[in-house]
Every structure is written in structure tokens, then in C-alpha cells.
């Protein structure tokens, strides 16, 4: 048995070493939704600071209406407030410019106008461009808030054919403007040079000066669309090296497969307790705003739903898996077993999804927590169903990449499923509501190390071979292979969360017991389902020929149809009718 050393850290030094070095970090098949994004575009600077110098030679601040003004404070302090005149080094105003408007501005600033503007409180009164004039006061004469004016300023255009005229007004202590305005003609500044560099008009630090408290402060809570990135809520724990089996899996599967709160404040192993299923329940154990400012860099990188330590290894070890005998054998297996299996799983889960009660109509007097738990369970189940749909698409992609012209989309569900430990057992497919028995079966189906979890391991092992030049195929197979763990966790959580509503005899409170409907009852839903399949078939065929833009039209159509399908599924379920995806007797 040769010595099996751990990963050895080497530092690349010359150019080929650096180019070929596998940098510890996200593998190329990572998607943004699979890991925490670690950059925050938009937070490098405060864009408002560009507009404070929109007019050559002048510097403004956008002043808000004060929240709690002192009674003796000056009135009407809101608006685009002139801070000072700054024309000495303005790149738009060189002394030797032949432009008349430049010389005129320089004359004004260095003369009487500059004198006037250097005293008193001056505000932007109006701007005019292309014959459009905007006066910064409302109907009652109240000056606009600075941020509102800022939006108008942002709409000004720059360019040699886009002159701008502005007027400045001086306000006295009572906020009353002097009717003798200062009117200046010029152009809006080009904030970037041709090379994409910020104009030299800005001082060092000027563009960032008004940024709020560190982004991490907001990062703790923010889930709105402003953030072009996201962060995970729950994650799986890192498998430490000394606790990993040769396969890379943990020697303590329960611990390794438990969801933790990513923002948990206790990051020691003893703090690795399962996250609860609502934000409110987890909140007391999370790091607080004042802590996140100091601890943001301790938040672990998450890849494939799992916290990673120093080094992420993209390639799974599959020591006990043998590759397919031939590529043809692999293609046959994907065509006849794997792709149909994904379709069956996604439909079983969809069927179960519609059996969950509508959170908005449950008896909240009797079950105060049921609404939240249903929202969770429905979301989780839909996520898993979508996951299987994604797998189906990937299985098809493997096929078209491997088969080229011979590819035919596989969109037929399998008749049976093989799952369970080892080689598993064969079970007939079945459309069932999400009863506790069904959840238990789904957990078995998705159990890590079970037959289905390892379904793609053979593909990975085969595509790992260096004869497959296109590494994307390998990466794709790895993605499907490693994607299943979350499904198992989701079903386990559903079981825990929903068990408490399944106490008395009869219908569990979370369920609406749907029965498989007739084709006539579900006519609309089945028609929509057929449209979905047909749309996907066309889209996959086009994608297999690299015609992505054309396929996009069908994909969009499928998405729209799925929305209608969901509405129709809910409608049928409210009448206790399940969609007969395939002919079956209720079990």
C-alpha cells in the first residue's frame, strides 16, 4: 500500500506554474446560487458623489430635509447645496481653452460671480437642457429634497451637443430666495474618460466619502434586490480532514448532513446544532450587527451548500466506482435509466407539492405555527422538485454532448424506481400526497450513499478519463452527482416540521388529501403539461445544435406555461384532485 499523503501545499513561482496552478476556491462549475458571492459591486463608491461635480467648477451636496431641525436653524436647507466653487484644477476648465463658454465661466468664477457665490447659502434653482427646464420647487414653492434633485441631475446628458444651463439662488435665514439668480452655461461633466477612468476632477476619497457603515452591517440582514449577490441562510458543516473517510465523506454522516445557520455566532464544533426552520427562531443565535462588522471575514465560504475550509477539492474520490465499459453503455444508461428517473422523481414531488394545504387558509387559531411551516415545506418541496427537473435537463445535456446528431430529447418518466442501500430495490413509481409514509420513502430515495445518490458516480468516473477532452462534461456530471445531499436534508426537515400536525387520527392538518383525478378532470393541466414537454423537446434539440438564442424562445414559453400549470394545479388540489401524470391506481 503506497503512502497516501495529504494534499501538499506548494507555491507556484514561475509563469507556467502560476497558470496551471489549481487555485483553492470555487470550481468552474460553481453557480452564484450555490455559494456565497464574495464581491459587492455597487459598494465600491457612492454614485451620488459623481453628480456633486456635474457642472464644471462647482461642488454640490444633496441635502435632505432635516428630521429634527432646531427651531433657530435656517429654513429650507434641503436641495442641491453649493459647497464651494472649485475651478482651479477642473479638467474641463483649462486656462488656455479656446472655448468661449470655458473662458466665460472662468471669468465669472474669478470675478464678481465667484465673489457672490463665496458668501451665503446657495442652492441649485433650476437646470435646462434641450429646451426642457426643471425648477426645483413644488407647487407651493417648497424646495425639493436633495435626493429628488439628484435624480434629475442624473438624467442630464453629457456631450458637445448637449449644453446645460443652470441657475443658483441664494436663500436667506428664513429660506426665502434672492430673486437675483446666478445663471451659468456649460456642459455636464463626463464622469469617465474615454479609457474608463474617473475624471481627474475628483479628489482622492471623494467617491467613497458618503458610504454607509461597512457593507457587512447591511449584509447581515439584507435580502432585497439591491444586492447583486446573496448569502446562504443554512449550510452544511465542513467535513474536517481528520474526520473524512477515504471517499471524502464524513465518518459521522448525521453531523455532516445537518443544516447549520450560516450566521450562527458560535462557530465552535459545539455550536454546530441544527438550524431551526424560520428566521425568527434562529435569530437569537446569530451574530449581531455590531459583531458582523468585525466577523464578516470569519464567515466561511460555502460551496455546494457546504462550508469549506482552506482548500476545496472539486474532484470527488470515487474509489469503489467502476467506469462504464464504453461510452455507448453510458449513453444507454442515461437514456433508459437516469434521465427517465429524474422525470419520475420530479413528477412525484410535484404531485406531493400540490397535496400540501394552502398556508393562507389553514386554521391559525388551532395551529398558530402551521402557516409558517407550510410556507417552508411548500418552498422546500418545490425546490427539490425543481432540482430534479434541473437534473433532467443536465442528463439531457450529457446526452446531446455525447451523442451529437443522434440526440433525441428524453422526456418520458420511468415506470419504476430503484432505490435503497447498496444496489437498492425496485419500486413502482407512484403519485402520492405528502403523507408521513411518503416523506419517509422520499428520504430513503434521496439518502446519501443510497442507490440514487450514487446514480451518476459511474458517469463521473467514466468522464474523468483523460480521453474526454471536453472537461465541461466531467464538471457537469460532478454537479449532478454532488447535488443530491440537499434533497435528503430538505425531506428530513419536512418530516420534523410537519410531524407535529400529524397527531390525531385522520387527515394531518398540513395536508389536503388529493386523489388522482381523471383525464377529463385534469384536462387543462395535462394539456399544459404536454405543452411544457413539447417546448422542452424543441428547446433541447436547438441547444444540442448550439442554437441557444432560438432555444430561449421555447424555454421562455415553457416557463410561462409552468406558471399557468402551477395555478391550475393549485385549483385542482383545492378540489382534492391530483394531476394524473401517468395512469395509476391510488396506493
Amino acid at each position, binding site marked *: 500500500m*503506497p*503512502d*497516501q*499523503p*495529504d*494534499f*501538499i*501545499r*506548494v*507555491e*507556484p*513561482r*514561475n*509563469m*507556467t*506554474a*502560476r*497558470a*496551471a*496552478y*489549481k*487555485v*483553492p*476556491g470555487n470550481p468552474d462549475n460553481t453557480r452564484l446560487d450555490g455559494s456565497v458571492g464574495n464581491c459587492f459591486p455597487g459598494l465600491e463608491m457612492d454614485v451620488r458623489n459623481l453628480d456633486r461635480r456635474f457642472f464644471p467648477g462647482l461642488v454640490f451636496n444633496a441635502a435632505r430635509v432635516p428630521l429634527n431641525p432646531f427651531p433657530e436653524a435656517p429654513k429650507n436647507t434641503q436641495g442641491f447645496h453649493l459647497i464651494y466653487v472649485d475651478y482651479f484644477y477642473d479638467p474641463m476648465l483649462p486656462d488656455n481653452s479656446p472655448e468661449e463658454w470655458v473662458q466665460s465661466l472662468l471669468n465669472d468664477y474669478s470675478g464678481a460671480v465667484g465673489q457672490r457665490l463665496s458668501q451665503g447659502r446657495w442652492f441649485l434653482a433650476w437646470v435646462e437642457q434641450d429646451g426642457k427646464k426643471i425648477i426645483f420647487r413644488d407647487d407651493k414653492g417648497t424646495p425639493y429634497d436633495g435626493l429628488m434633485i439628484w435624480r434629475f441631475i442624473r438624467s442630464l446628458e453629457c456631450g458637445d451637443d448637449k449644453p446645460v444651463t443652470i441657475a443658483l439662488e441664494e436663500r436667506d435665514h428664513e429660506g426665502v430666495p434672492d430673486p437675483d439668480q446666478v445663471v451659468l452655461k456649460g456642459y455636464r461633466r463626463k464622469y469617465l474618460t474615454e479609457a474608463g477612468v474617473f475624471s481627474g476632477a475628483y479628489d482622492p476619497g471623494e467617491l467613497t466619502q458618503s458610504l454607509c457603515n461597512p457593507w457587512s452591517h447591511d449584509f447581515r440582514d439584507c435580502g432585497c434586490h439591491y444586492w447583486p449577490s446573496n448569502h446562504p441562510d443554512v449550510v452544511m458543516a465542513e467535513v474536517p480532514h481528520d474526520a473524512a473517510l477515504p471517499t471524502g465523506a464524513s465518518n459521522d454522516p448525521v453531523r455532516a448532513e445537518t443544516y447549520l445557520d450560516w450566521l450562527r455566532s458560535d462557530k465552535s464544533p459545539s455550536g454546530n446544532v441544527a438550524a431551526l426552520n424560520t428566521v425568527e427562531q434562529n435569530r437569537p443565535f446569530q451574530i449581531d450587527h455590531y459583531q458582523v462588522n468585525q466577523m464578516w471575514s470569519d464567515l466561511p465560504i460555502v460551496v455546494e451548500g457546504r462550508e469549506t475550509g482552506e482548500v476545496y477539492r472539486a474532484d470527488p474520490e470515487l474509489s469503489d466506482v467502476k467506469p462504464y465499459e464504453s461510452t455507448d453503455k453510458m449513453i444507454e444508461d442515461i437514456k433508459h435509466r437516469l434521465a427517465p428517473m429524474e422525470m419520475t422523481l420530479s413528477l412525484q414531488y410535484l404531485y406531493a407539492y400540490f397535496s400540501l394545504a394552502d398556508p393562507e387558509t389553514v386554521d391559525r387559531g388551532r395551529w398558530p405555527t402551521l402557516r409558517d411551516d407550510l410556507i417552508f415545506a411548500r418552498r422546500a418541496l418545490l425546490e427539490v422538485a425543481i432540482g430534479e427537473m434541473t437534473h433532467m435537463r443536465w442528463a439531457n445535456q450529457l446526452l446531446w454532448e455525447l451523442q451529437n446528431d443522434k440526440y433525441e430529447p428524453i422526456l418520458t418518466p420511468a415506470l419504476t424506481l430503484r432505490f435503497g442501500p447498496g444496489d437498492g430495490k425496485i419500486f413502482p413509481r407512484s403519485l402520492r400526497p405528502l403523507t408521513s409514509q411518503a416523506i419517509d420513502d422520499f428520504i430513503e430515495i434521496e439518502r446519501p450513499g443510497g442507490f440514487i445518490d450514487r446514480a451518476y458516480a459511474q458517469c463521473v468516473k467514466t468522464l474523468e478519463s*483523460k480521453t474526454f477532452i471536453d472537461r465541461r462534461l466531467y464538471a457537469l456530471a460532478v454537479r449532478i452527482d454532488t447535488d443530491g445531499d440537499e434533497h435528503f436534508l430538505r425531506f428530513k426537515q419536512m418530516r420534523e416540521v410537519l410531524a407535529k400536525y400529524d397527531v390525531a387520527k385522520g387527515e394531518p392538518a398540513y395536508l389536503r388529501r388529493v386523489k388522482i383525478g381523471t383525464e377529463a378532470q385534469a384536462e387543462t393541466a395535462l394539456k399544459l403539461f404536454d405543452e411544457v414537454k413539447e417546448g422542452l423537446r424543441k428547446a433541447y434539440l436547438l441547444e444540442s445544435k448550439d442554437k441557444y438564442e432560438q432555444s430561449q424562445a421555447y424555454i421562455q414559453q415553457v416557463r410561462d406555461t409552468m406558471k399557468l400549470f402551477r395555478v391550475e394545479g393549485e385549483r385542482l388540489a383545492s378540489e382534492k384532485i391530483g394531476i394524473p401524470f401517468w395512469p395509476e391506481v391510488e396506493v
Partner: protein
Amino acid sequence: MIPATAEVHFFETDYGHHMLAVDGSRVFDVPIDAAARFAGLDESGQRAYLDSMGLDGEPFIDDTPPTNMPVRSLSLAVAQKCNLACTYCYASGGDFGGPARNMGWEVARASVDRLVAEAEPGTRINLAYLGGEPLINRALVHRVTEYATAQAQSNDLRVGFSITTNGTLLRPEDAEFFEENGFAVTISLDGIGQVHDRLRPNRGGRGSYDMILRRIEPLLALQQNMQVGARVTVTPHNMNLPETLEEFVRMGLHSVGFSPMLASPNGRNELERDDFGEMLNQMILCGQAFETAVKIGRRYPFSNMSAAMQEIHRGTHRPYACGAGAGYFGVSADGGLFACHRFVEDDAGAMGNVFDGPDLRRNQWLEDRHVHGQSPCNICWARYLCGGGCHHEVIHRGRPACDYIRGWLHYCLQAYVRLSEARPGYFGQTATHATA
């Protein structure tokens, strides 16, 4: 199968322990015990060890020789005769063992046409004038240069010229001509004064050093576009390399390079086993002078060293020692095409003629000469930096200098680490560690 021991070479410096991953000529810093741990493992353990360092990717170089390479560089044996009688000349006194003669215009023009016909627009073609002594046929050199410049201009190509001369026939007007056309001029100088004279006498037995120095003065004075370098052929009789180097650098030469005398037609002045040890010591002394100079920011044109530093930095890895028989050929006076200037009139490197282009013998040559097919190169860690050695020398003498080459490369690897620490800017960009 290449043994694991031939996949890496470990070395040390004051900055720590390092490793050359032979595949891709990658240089890494490794843990202190890496070499010892590696040495203590059996073959499969060593493989696993290399994998654990991330050296398990696609190989950079496979066994497949290149095909359909355009001819980019030709050297023209414009005069297969010489006025000197150097003791060890590979061309046997300039005539390559045949009748002395000059190249005619037809052959020279066909050479330029061949380069122009095969080059993609925007690329660079190269013409080298060799001999014999090329300046014996000065008129042809001028005519070909003008023709090639015009052809390059009208075909959107860049053209580079070089000439290797013994320097004895240089005239002041040559300096102007070389400067105007941006020549790389290589003067064969084998030492200082009498050392040179003993190795490179004229046909009457008189020395040539003083005359050459006088004749290259106008070139050195004018050198802007042109680059004037010295090539020293090292024999057992001119081993004082640091002094030679320092003197030639002082003279203002743009580059100074040393090559060991491995194979001469008559066996005279070839280096023997013990001589290589001495030459390595001398070369390292020169290298140390280079390191000292670079650290203080002084230009020190020791070309063996500066080329090695750039190649190691870039991670140059090649399955051939040079472009001979691939993109580079030597043209004989009567238009024969040979693997390089040294193979002129030698059947071992004959590959057709310049009028019809290289024939099928080129493919066979590239297949035969691939370093993976060379023994013992295929088990040597230096194979992709060395490329298997000069084909001409290997075919005619074998590989007596392997230890010398490995010793030199080992030193160069160490020097690379030292310079990349002490003066990272020398390599054009920061050569400090990449951090993720």
C-alpha cells in the same frame, strides 16, 4: 512510461526548498521535507505524492511531432569558404568538406520567396547569413537584404536579419548597412588576444584578434538598431570565461554567449569529460557575476544566463532543442535545404531544396528527434529545458555533456529563485508568490 523521479527536480536556495515540475517547466516552492519524503517512496508512492501536489493534469507535451509548420527562418550559406582556418570548424574550414563556392542570386531569391510564401501576414520572418565567412559574398548579402525588405513590405511581414561573421572582413560601410537594416551581428571571438589567436588563426597561421577588434569598432560605435554580440566557442584552451565575459561586456558588446565545443569534424579541441566540470565552474562564476549585476540594476549581457532566466520564468518547455528542421532550415550555396546551418552538405540533415520546400524527410526528422524518443533524455529531468541537445552534436558525437547541462540548469533554477526574490522587476512583472 516516464519514471516519477524524472518528473521532478528538487533544489534548494537560501529562500527555501523548491521543485521543478518537468512537465510544463513549472517552478514551485515546496515544504522543507518534500525531496526527502519523495526519495523515500516507491514508484506508486511517488506518483501519489506528485498527484497530491496537484501535478496530475493533462501533460503539457505529448509524443506527437508538429506538422505543417511554416518555414519562418532560413540561414543562407552565402559563401561556402572562409579566410580563417579555425581548428575545430564544423564547416571544415568553410567549405563543408566540398568545393568552395558562393551562393548565386537565384538560390538567394528563392530563399526569400520561400519565406514570404509560407508566412502568414503580420508575422516575422528571419534571414541569417552564414558561411563559411558570409562577408566573402558581401554583394549578395546586400542584394538579398534589399530584396527581402521590399518583399516583406509588400506582403505585410516583418523581417529580421542576422549575420555570423569572423569579423576580419568588416568594413566601416558594413556598419552603416547593418545599422540601417537592424542586423543582429554575431562575431566569433574565442577569447582575449592570444587565446583567440591560437584557436582562430588565418590560413597563414597568423592571429586575427587585434584586426577583428579594430574592424568591429565602427559597429560598436554605431550600434543602435543593430545588436553586436560575441559568440565564444569554449574549448580546453580558452577556459577563463569570467575574464573573457567581463572584457567583452566592457567593450560594449550587446550580448556575449558561450557554447561548448562538442563535435568538430576532425575531433580537435573537443571538450572531454573533465573539461565539462571545469567549464561548469567557469559558467557558474559568470552567472554569479550576472546575479550581482542584476541585483544592483546593472545591465550584464551574459546571454546564456539572461536567456535561461527568461525561459525559466516563462516556463519554456520544448520537445526539441531548437527549431532546426521544423521552422528553421539551412540553405546551401546551390539551394539544398538542410536541418540547419551546421548540417549543410550533410545527408543526415538533408530535406530537399529551397525551390520546392522541405520534403517528407522533415516529418521523419521531427519524429526521430522528438525528445521523448531520445535516450536517455526520456528519463532526464532537464529534457524540456534542454530539448535533447544540439541535433548536430548529438548525431555526430552523442551526449557527452549531459551532466554539464544539468549542472548548469540546476544553477540557473537556483539563480532564478534568488533573482525573483531580490529583483522581481527584472522579470517584467512581480514574480512573488501568487496568493489566492
